[in-house]
């Protein structure tokens, strides 16, 4: 197996684990953590393709990941604020029990 394929497989496994957490966990915070893991897997793909790409001097992969990390930080802050607001309203962070649109 070549190094690039190994990094891509690692990224695929991290993405699948994050997706499993986002789809199967009850707690909303764990769902958000799963989404963060998926974003990180995508970042690893960007860095691996930048390193093994034909034109690494352009630094596009690195800069894309830097912007992506910034957006992930904003997403985490807003997502956790939403979870806290939902917890105040429903007194639970269990996504199975948050099933009404108006209430």
């Amino acid at each position, binding site marked *: 197996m070549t190094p690039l394929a190994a990094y891509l497989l690692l990224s695929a496994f991290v993405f699948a684990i994050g997706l499993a957490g986002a789809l*199967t966990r009850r707690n909303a915070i764990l769902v958000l953590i799963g989404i963060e893991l998926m974003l990180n897997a995508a970042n690893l793909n960007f860095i691996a393709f930048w390193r093994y790409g034909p034109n690494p001097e352009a630094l596009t992969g690195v800069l894309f990941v830097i912007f992506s990390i910034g957006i992930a*930080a904003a997403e985490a802050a807003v997502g*956790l604020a939403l979870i806290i607001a939902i917890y*105040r309203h429903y007194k639970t962070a269990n996504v199975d029990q948050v099933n009404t649109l108006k209430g």
Partner: protein
Amino acid sequence: MGISFAIIAGLTVAAAVAAMSLRNLIHCSLALVVAFAGLAAAYLQLDAQFVGFAQILVYIGAVSILVVFAILITRSGEDPNESVFSMSWMAGIAVVLAVLGVLVWAIMRSSVAQRELPPTPSATVQQIGSELMGRFVLPLEVIGLLLTAALIGAVIIAMRDRNTD
């Protein structure tokens, strides 16, 4: 490529599995820190030093602290008699296995994945800075605006609603 990659990959995958499957939420967030550190080590191994240290600062330093704060605020001590997985977990696992199968199949068949390692590129902080101030100055400004909006929005969303109290 070799023993160091095997250690990093095994640690990252094991920590990610632990973060997604443990019952205690604090343990989950600590496992998440280990997974983020493993990914940062992978970035460092790929000669992307700046991204590796940004990963450590942003994810290990900030995002995991935010997660711990949210766990403490929502007091999510889970009911020990209740499963931590949702009612539709079997459908979720089926989707995950399908996605993983497609990804592994695509990676194994791809000709791009056969590339050999090119010589080490130079990605110094100076180069990244001049790119950020030159070609990528507009995305940088947009990110600054987005972060400001997200900060204000997060405060407003999480602020206690006077009408309901």
